[in-house]
C-alpha cells in the first residue's frame, strides 16, 4: 500500500464547482425570468381565490343527456380523425423513413428526406392545423392533415433510426442469396424493425388521439371545438364533463395499446397478459428480498 497522505491535505469530498456555479446562475435566471413574465406571488394568491371559484363552477360536471350526446359526437369525430391520421401517417412514414435511413440510401436522397422530417417535426400540430384550415376549410379533413404531418415528423425519424440500427449481417445474408432490393427489404430489414415499429405506431395512435382532442380549438374538427366554445361561454361544468371524458378515453386507449404491444411483441394472450402482470409483481416482491440465491 502506498503511504497515506497527511490528514490536512486530504479532502473527503471534492466540490463540483461547475455544478455549483451552474445552480447559482440558474437561480438568477429564475428570478429574472419570473420578473419578465410577471409571475408574482400576489398574482398567485389572487389566482387561488379565482381558482376556487372556477373549481366551484366546474363541479358537479354537467353530464345531462343533451351534453352527453355532444360529447359522444365530438369524441367519435376525434377518434375518427386519430384513426385515419394514424393510418395515413404511418403509410407515408414508412417510405419517408426508409428514404432517410443512411445505411440503405445514398446521401442525395437522405438529406431531402431528413429536411422534410425536420420541417414536419418543428411545427406544433396546432400550427399545422391552422394552415390546413386555411387550405381545406374548417372540419375534420384539416385535422387529419395536421395530424398526418405530425405523425410523419415523429414516426419517420424513429423509423429511420431503427433501420440504421439493424444488424447488417442479416441484410448481407439476404443479399448474398441473390435477392433484389425489395427482397432485401422484406426479408432482411422489415423483420428486424417490425416490433419496434409496432411500438412507435401504437404510441403515435395514443398521441394522435390526444392531439385530436385539441385541434378543434382552431376549427380542425373533433371534441376540441366544443371544449373551446364551452370555455368561451364560461360553461365550466360542461368543460369539466368534456375533460373527464377525454381523460377516460385516453386511459382506455393506453390500456388497449399496451395490450396490443404485449400481444404482438411477447406473444401474450389476454389471460397470459393479466397473469403475467401478477407474476412480474410477485417476482418483484421476491427479488426485493432475495439478492442472489
Amino acid at each position, binding site marked *: 500500500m502506498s503511504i*497515506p*497522505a497527511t490528514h490536512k491535505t*486530504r479532502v*473527503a*469530498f471534492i466540490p463540483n464547482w461547475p455544478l455549483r456555479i451552474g445552480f447559482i446562475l440558474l437561480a438568477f435566471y429564475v428570478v429574472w425570468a419570473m420578473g419578465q413574465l410577471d409571475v408574482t406571488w400576489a398574482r398567485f394568491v389572487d389566482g387561488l381565490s379565482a381558482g376556487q371559484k372556477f373549481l366551484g363552477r366546474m363541479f358537479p360536471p354537467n353530464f345531462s343527456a343533451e351534453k352527453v350526446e355532444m360529447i359522444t359526437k365530438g369524441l367519435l369525430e376525434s377518434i375518427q380523425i386519430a384513426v385515419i391520421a394514424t393510418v395515413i401517417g404511418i403509410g407515408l412514414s414508412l417510405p419517408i423513413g426508409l428514404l432517410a435511413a443512411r445505411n440503405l440510401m445514398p446521401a442525395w436522397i437522405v438529406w431531402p428526406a431528413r429536411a422534410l422530417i425536420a420541417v414536419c417535426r418543428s411545427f406544433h400540430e396546432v400550427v399545422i392545423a391552422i394552415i390546413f384550415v386555411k387550405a381545406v376549410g374548417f372540419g375534420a379533413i384539416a385535422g387529419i392533415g395536421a395530424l398526418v404531418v405530425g405523425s410523419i415528423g415523429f414516426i419517420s425519424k424513429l423509423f429511420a433510426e431503427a433501420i440504421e440500427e439493424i444488424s447488417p449481417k442479416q441484410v448481407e445474408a439476404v443479399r448474398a442469396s441473390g435477392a433484389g432490393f425489395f427482397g432485401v427489404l422484406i426479408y432482411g430489414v422489415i423483420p428486424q424493425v417490425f416490433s419496434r415499429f409496432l411500438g412507435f405506431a401504437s404510441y403515435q395512435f395514443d398521441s394522435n388521439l390526444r392531439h385530436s382532442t385539441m385541434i378543434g380549438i382552431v376549427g380542425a374538427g373533433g371534441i376540441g371545438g366544443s371544449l373551446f366554445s364551452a370555455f368561451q361561454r364560461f360553461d365550466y361544468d360542461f368543460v369539466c364533463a368534456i375533460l373527464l371524458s377525454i381523460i377516460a378515453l385516453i386511459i382506455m386507449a393506453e390500456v388497449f395499446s399496451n395490450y396490443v404491444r404485449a400481444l404482438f411483441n411477447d406473444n401474450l394472450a389476454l389471460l397470459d397478459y393479466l397473469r403475467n402482470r401478477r407474476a412480474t409483481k410477485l417476482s418483484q416482491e*421476491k427479488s426485493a*428480498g432475495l*439478492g*442472489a*440465491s
Partner: protein
Amino acid sequence: MNPLDRSIQIRGLTKEYKKGVPVLKGIDLDIPGDGITAIIGPSGTGKSTLIRCINRLIDPTAGQILFQGQDLAKLSGVPLREARRRIGMVFQEYNLVERLTVMENVLTGRLGYVSAFRAWLRKFPQDDIDEAFALLDAVGLGNFVNQRADGLSGGQRQRVGIARAIMQRPEILLADEPTSSLDPKTSVEIMEIMAEMAGTRNIPIIVNIHNVALAKRFCQRMIGMTGGKVVFNGSPAELTDDHLKEIYGGEDWLE
C-alpha cells in the same frame, strides 16, 4: 440482558415466499457472540434467506430471532432501524452505490445516525470522516477516496463494502457470500481483512460461504444447512466427510 452479549438465538424460524412452500423450516439455532460462524450448504437451501431474516431485509413468516433481549423478528419502524444500525452487512455483489465516490459509499454506513438533511449536504461529523479515512487506509484504498465506485475492481469494491459495514461500528457482522464473485486469491484476502477488522473490534461474524475449505480455514464454528434445516452445528474439526455428504448430497465431488 447483558448488552455485551452478542450472541443470537433463533427459535422456530420459518419463511415461506409462496404459501405452503417453506424455504426455512423452523430453524432453531444458537450463534455464539464471538468469532466467525460459517453457514454452508447447497444453493437454494435458504442460507441467504436466514441471514437476511436477521437484519430483516426479509420478513420471516414465523419464529423468533433474539438478540440482546429483543426479538428482531417483531420489530418495525424506528426500533427496527435502530437494530439494523447495530448489524453490519457485507454482500455478494458488493451493493455499492455506483455513482457515488468511495468516501461517500463508506460514509453511507453512518446514515442510520446522521439526519437525511445532513447526509444530503454531505455534512458528516468530522469523527466519522476521520474514521472513514482510517478504514480506507486499513483496507488499502487510501488513494481511491474520491474515485467513483463504478471504476473499481471486484476486490476493491468488496473492500469498500467491508469498510462501509465496519463504519456502522456494528455489534455483529453479517456476510452474504462475500467471496463468491471473487477469484481465489482475492477471496482469501477479503476473508483475512474481514477476520482482522472484526477480530480487533470484537465483532462476531456470521458468514454464508460456498467454499468449505475457506470456511474451515477462517471459522471457529460451522453450521451446515440443507433443505431449509440445520443438519450440522459444530467446530470445523468435527465436520467430517459424512456430514458433507449429508449437507450437499452425493459424494462424487468429494474425491
